[in-house]
């Protein structure tokens, strides 16, 4: 079922779209609580966020990705177009591969991050959390490309967790275990084409499944049927929020403000300030923000985005970060209790030069017990690796668990 019916031209009256998986999500959503994600109804949790988290780390979980913004880019200049748009060298993303990217304004301020799927020669899909049609169309001036938004035309599920590969094999996707991380493969499925990419937002072994909306429901059904003995569970965005912080992934609107949504220039961030300097490639020709980023690389940046390991078990959401001498140097942007690392963890933005690996800091945490507020200055250490990084994430062929 298509998410949006344009035929009678009344789609704009719809206040919130139902995902093509809605008929399956709705009965499973025991909490009957729905959040909004880009005008789609999206469950925060189906029954219990912790259980959904553990399903993902110990079995597998299904997350509805349909609301994620998707653009289709094709034409003679598709590669040149993308190479001017994003900071990394897109020519290194070969057909059948996916690349994580960040794109900037002329001033080198981050607009958003996302993934580029190289579907075939001169044909790409770009996925991001925020909408960027105006900017992407602006970027087409002078390029022979066609750009269409296909958010509503592609249904997508993320299947993440150690038993995800076993589930897909059970569903009949032969050879899926040989798919390498960031690889794409196509399978015929119920008389249509199912695209499978080994990608995800959980830092675990996992896949994303892409299909036309008319086959959404049958995909959901077959997946749950196949995953029945592999502990499959549906998952909402609360569990995903924990998973992605463990994996060290940043999120627009949480860890940085998209440049096009800020009023104040000082509230924007450069790739260097988000720890994404490795995505900036000055060896390739001109790209948006190149001049500004070259200057920034030379003169230094203002902020560091760091991972913090915080003592105690209180979540450090929205906390101030101080040096040991009580100098205020930044704020926590995302935080969670990590059940896998058994630690209170956080992503934080600190004024440069603070945030060197191993640096000891203090995090001011406010917490409530039966309406009584308390405050603790918790010790925290800047860590360099990610909090949860199992070898199975990269292992190919992927194992059964």
């Amino acid at each position, binding site marked *: 079922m298509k998410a949006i019916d344009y035929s009678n031209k009344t789609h704009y009256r719809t206040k919130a779209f139902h995902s093509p998986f809605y008929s399956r999500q709705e009965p499973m959503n025991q909490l009957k609580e729905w959040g909004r994600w880009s005008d789609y109804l999206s469950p925060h949790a189906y029954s219990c966020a912790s259980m959904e988290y553990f399903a993902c780390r110990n079995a597998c979980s299904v997350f509805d990705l349909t609301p994620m913004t998707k653009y289709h880019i094709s034409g003679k200049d598709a590669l040149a177009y993308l190479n*001017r748009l994003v900071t990394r060298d897109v020519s290194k993303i070969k057909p059948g591969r996916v690349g994580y990217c960040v794109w900037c*304004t*002329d001033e080198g301020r981050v607009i958003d991050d996302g993934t580029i799927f190289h579907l075939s020669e001169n044909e790409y899909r770009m996925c991001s959390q925020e909408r960027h049609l105006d900017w992407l169309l*602006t*970027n087409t001036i*002078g*390029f022979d490309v066609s750009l269409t938004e296909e958010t509503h035309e592609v249904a997508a599920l993320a299947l993440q967790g150690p038993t995800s590969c076993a589930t897909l094999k059970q569903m009949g996707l032969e050879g899926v275990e040989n798919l390498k991380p960031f690889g794409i493969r196509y399978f015929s499925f119920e008389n249509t084409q199912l695209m499978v990419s080994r990608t995800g937002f959980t830092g675990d072994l996992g896949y994303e499944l892409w299909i036309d909306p008319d086959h959404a429901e049958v995909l959901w059904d077959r997946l749950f049927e196949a995953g029945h003995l592999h502990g499959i569970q549906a998952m909402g965005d609360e569990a995903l929020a924990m998973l992605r912080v463990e994996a060290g992934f940043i999120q627009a609107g949480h860890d940085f403000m998209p440049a096009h949504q800020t009023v104040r220039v000082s509230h924007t961030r450069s790739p260097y300030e988000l720890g994404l300097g490795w995505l900036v490639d000055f060896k390739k*020709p*001109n790209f948006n923000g190149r*001049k500004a980023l070259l200057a920034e690389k030379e003169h230094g940046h203002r902020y560091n985005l760091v991972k913090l390991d915080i003592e105690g078990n209180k979540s450090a959401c929205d906390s101030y970060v101080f040096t040991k001498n009580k100098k205020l140097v930044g704020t926590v942007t995302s935080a969670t209790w990590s059940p896998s690392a058994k630690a209170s963890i956080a992503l934080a933005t600190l004024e440069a030069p603070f945030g060197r690996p191993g640096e000891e800091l203090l995090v001011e945490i406010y917490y409530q017990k039966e309406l009584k507020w308390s405050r603790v200055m918790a010790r925290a250490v800047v860590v360099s690796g990610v909090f949860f990084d199992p070898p199975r994430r990269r292992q190919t062929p992927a194992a059964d668990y």
Partner: protein
Amino acid sequence: MTRANNHIVIIGGGHNGLVCAAYLAKAGKQVTVLEAAEQVGGLAVTQEFAPGFNVSAGAHLLFMLDKNIRKELRLDSAGLSFSQQDMSTTALAEDGNHLLIAGDSLQGADISNNDQVAMKEYQRFMKRFAGIFNRLNNRTPPRIGSKNRHDLLSLAKTALQVRLLGKNDMREFLRIAGINIYDVLQENFESPLLKGALSLDGVLGTNLGPRSNNSMFCALHRFSGMQGMSVPRGGMGSVSKALANVATNKGVTIRTSATVSRILMEGDRVSGVELQDGEKIPAVTVVSSADPKTTFLGLLGARHMEAGFTRKISNIRMRGNTAKLHLALDGLPEFNGLEQTQLGDRLLIAPDMEYVERAFNHAKYGERSSKPVAEITIPSLHDDSLAAPGKHVLSAIVQYAPYQLKAGWPAEKATFTDQIIDLLAKYAPGIHSQIIHKELLTPVDIEREFRISGGHWHHGELAIDQFLMLRPVPHCAQYASPVNGLFLCGAGSHPGGGVMGSAGRNAANAILASQRL
């Protein structure tokens, strides 16, 4: 050092390109000017449009040429002379009761005493206000937000100039600079014919009617360079020829019929240009006198620019709305009620402001005016080099003729030409039988022939939002572009269109300053 190391290539041999070349060569630079046409000049050019008949094919009056350039480059000794100077304007009336405007004095058309007095005051404050622009015309616009001493000083000076107008004049300047010329003229004058004629100062060569905002600004811009109307002997092409002579004498290589097809890049900076025939000319600095859209979107290509900048360039308002009519005449036309001596004036068809506004109305909807306005000259009257004895040429700037005509110019051009001639015949009844040849250049023709995107005379509307540090767009308004080694020197840059040469001179200074760093 290799040849490319100090070589400067200038794209386009229009007057600004030539001025820039001359100044760069004067400072010892090795300069090559590449002009696509068979002769230099751009829109300041004399062309034979019918056998034995020559006319200024673009601009047909000279009144804004920067005095500094004329003096510093010694144009007078390089062949610049005039067949007419300090021309008067005659506003034509259908009944033959014309209005003669000579400076601030008015004659004819039963003009009232009030208007006589008001005209003196109007000329006084227009010259005073335009003086502020005049001082800005000769320098690189300051950058907003810059902490550079030069920029801050320049901004402060401008503010001071406005303040020094005194309380009353400053208030009046700030009140009228952004509004429409219709309101200002309505406040000051009674005679419809006078108001119609003066309103053309705000709308000629633009996409504006008298009631459009910015029309007063355009009039001030026109006044800012005003030194009396004149016609160079041999047509406007002689200005360009004189400039080319000076440039050549200073060592500039000028190549005509050399069409640049693209600007070459090497890494982050320009490395030269490529001609249509494939020839590559290396250069460390490329200066373009082509309009910004042609330069950046056509010759450089979007992939060498950032997206935000590309959008700004593609959003520059530069759709021409002005056509040019050339008539080859078998004798001097006779205008009702006009003495033969007055035929050498600048003749205007703009009987009143409502007429001009109505002419503009059509353009808003992609139609040509059914009753156009015109600025007419008969340059052959005082210059026998333009046509054989007894023969004459008539040159008219005609509005409004939108670049994007709904019906398309191929379908409408002949009708429009006849319509303009019919309009002329209302004032000069015998003109039909005198016409040997007629030529109309629509904005589409101007785009093709003079390689100006949109066929806009001024390489972009003259407007407050496209002026000074905003012309053509921010980050490109100090003649240097965001691309290393690429500069602009044409009318698309400050201070804009009109045969001034200031953009070329300012650009040369900016280039030399950047190379001294």
